[in-house]
């Protein structure tokens, strides 16, 4: 019994460590929501602008209207991670389907899908996102849809290339020659072999989604006024920067940690991609 290539991949230290960092952040966010004495949206009278300290119980201080920064940051991490992962998964699933079809079928279908893709890619993402979110009620779902939709354009391109390569791989031809239907070829060989590249794509799409979300929230187009993502916190922190710098530094550090985690994870996965896709 030998470990599957997947296991070997995820047990590698360079993959495991950033994965643990992200898991830790998500775990802290969950624990805070359950057990932390302060809630992110509840101001506490007389405790505004406390500096970070151990004794008064607000470890990371409070903001201008007395909301606990630890609670707010952890909630922000949760929102950012949820939007990032949601948008990333949406991008992968949608982009994966388009890319796999274009790459596998080829011919005019490929041309058509990819030219539409080029067309959409040439549109300015930020302007469209701002327009869409301003037109409709800002919500987490809408944000995931917009950011994920744009991410799927990139993902489709990456996955199409890989699908094209795999379509001509000897093992795909072998299964065709054994009488596999197109669906069987797709399910048994193409999709499993696309997954490593898809995961790598996740490493770029997710941080991008988190950044876009933070930027939109910074502009005041965040999903929720009450809880606030890291971007909302940053926007408020900038206003209080002169007398309460921690209100900016704390969410900024949290955002940096998340992006670092995804960045390292993506790099490590990309570097080890050969473990999975090449058989040598």
């Amino acid at each position, binding site marked *: 019994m030998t470990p*599957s290539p997947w296991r070997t991949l995820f047990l590698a230290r360079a993959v495991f460590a950033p994965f643990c960092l992200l898991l830790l952040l998500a775990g802290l966010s969950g624990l805070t929501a359950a057990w932390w004495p302060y809630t992110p949206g509840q101001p506490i009278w007389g405790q505004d602008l406390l500096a970070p300290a151990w004794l008064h119980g607000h470890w990371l201080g409070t903001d201008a209207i007395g909301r606990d920064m630890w609670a707010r940051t952890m909630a922000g991490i949760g929102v950012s991670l949820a939007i990032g992962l949601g948008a990333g998964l949406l991008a992968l699933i949608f982009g994966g389907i388009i890319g796999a079809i274009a790459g596998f079928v080829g011919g005019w279908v490929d041309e058509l899908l990819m030219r539409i893709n080029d067309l959409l890619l040439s549109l300015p993402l930020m302007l469209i996102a701002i327009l869409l979110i301003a037109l409709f009620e800002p919500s987490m779902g809408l944000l995931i849809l917009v950011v994920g939709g744009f991410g799927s354009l990139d993902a489709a391109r990456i996955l199409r290339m890989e699908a094209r390569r795999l379509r001509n791989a000897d*093992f795909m031809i*072998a299964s065709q020659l*054994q*009488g*596999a239907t197109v669906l069987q070829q797709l399910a048994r060989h193409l999709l499993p072999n696309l997954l490593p590249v898809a995961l790598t794509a996740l490493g770029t799409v997710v941080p991008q989604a988190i950044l876009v979300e933070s930027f939109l929230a910074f502009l005041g187009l965040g999903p929720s006024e009450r809880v606030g993502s890291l971007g909302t916190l940053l926007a408020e922190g900038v206003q209080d920067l002169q007398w309460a710098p921690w209100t900016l530094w704390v969410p900024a550090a949290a955002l940096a940690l998340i992006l670092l985690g995804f960045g390292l994870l993506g790099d490590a996965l990309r570097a080890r991609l050969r473990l999975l896709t090449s*058989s040598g």
Partner: protein
Amino acid sequence: MSAPLLEVRGLCVGFEGAANIIDGFDLAIRAGESIGLVGSSGAGKSLLARALLGLLPSGARSRAGLVIYDGQTLSTPAQFARLRGAHIAYVFQDAASSLHPLKRVATQLHECLRVHAPELDRAQRGRRIGEALEEVGLADARRWLNAFAHQLSGGQRQRVMLALTLLPQPKLLIADEPTSALDPVLARRVCDLLAAATQRRGMALLLISHDLPRVAEYCERIYRLQQGRVVAAPLQCCAPTPAPALTPAPAPALAPALIEARGLSLSYASNWRWPWQKPLAWVIDGLDLRLTAGQRLAVIGSSGSGKSSLARGLLRLLPALGGEVRWFGQDLARLTTTQLRLVRPRVQLVFQDPFGSLDPLQRVDAMLAEALRYAPFAGAQLRQSVHGLLAAVGLPADAATRYPSQFSGGQRQRLAIARALATQPAVLICDEATSALDADTQTQILNLLDRLAAERGLALLFISHDLAAVARLCDRLLVLDGGRIVEQGETTQLLNAPQSAALRALLDARPQRRSSEIA
């Protein structure tokens, strides 16, 4: 007897934290001598060559032993660096990647001379380069000098590499599998050049290869590397007359054909042309072929003769633009997708590259189980199991729980054959199925194919450029050149009395025995 030019005593090389790969290796090369070093892949041949040049890959260490060049013991990197190129030259296996892709040939040759012979001026360098190119058979130097590596063919690249290594006038040339990327006709020319150049200049040659017969032809002594040390080389050369082929009962002329091609024409371009466009370039041009039950038919030809395209055409991976292909009497082009899918399992392909033909993410048992599901079992036919298949191709039962990356090239080819057998085919098409393997493994795979074909009554269509393999395995032979059949008949007959130029060229390219002394 003069003192050796290069002497190696008790060399031990290994990777950190692992046993020695080279373990107590001894070698002595005198000036002007040609030495062969053979061994199967993984025996440590290339590692040894790199150890001789002081170019061990990272992680590898020379643990014991001496490398002595011209009476001087080499130990520090600087000592090796002084000798490399100027005294000891190295020809790489893969000329494509050892030439700089973005520099013209001339720039690279001048650079080499600027380093090794700084006293020469540009004109003198140009003259030396012209001579060197002429020596390796690239006359009309101006044409080659301005070329980039990608504009040259494989043989031309290897020649440029050779010219490059000859420029500093080294005393010893180490050639590491210089021809394994070339087809046999080209390989022969490059080896001839190598031998001629070393002889003319009185250079010593260390020729490293897995191809014993070829080395035997060019070298005075042969060392065989096994388990890291030298063992005597049993010289099993290709006999000039091919070994008597196995003689299955010759199929009666009118036996029903399993696979039949009539006037088959294939092309990679589309059939539809503008009137002013050139006519189609046919890869296969009006070819007739019949394969009957139990028959073993070989298709041979040099690279580019259309062998692989023929396999693709017969399998309908490439549509027939002219003529027809019939499987079991049915015209393939007329079958619907579903009908085709149902008949596909009866004709299976073994690919050339055992590294690309197995899904890297699929465990062996899953792969074979999938293949078994496609098999058109009728009632109580032979029940096959994953373990039965593994046993049939000579792999242990615990191979079932491993992934393809954990097998060697030869084992993978066995796996590919097991997968092909799972669907109970009547015909097995082998597209250069042994050419990516080293000599020992080739023999094993050929024996396996031979046994399986006999046991299961398979018809074989064996596509190859390896005449020894063909002589060993096949009773009928078909010679392909430029997409047409130029000759066909009984294997023994044809090999003994070749009529066509294509077959004669392939026969001439076979190594001939010349070795006198085996170390």
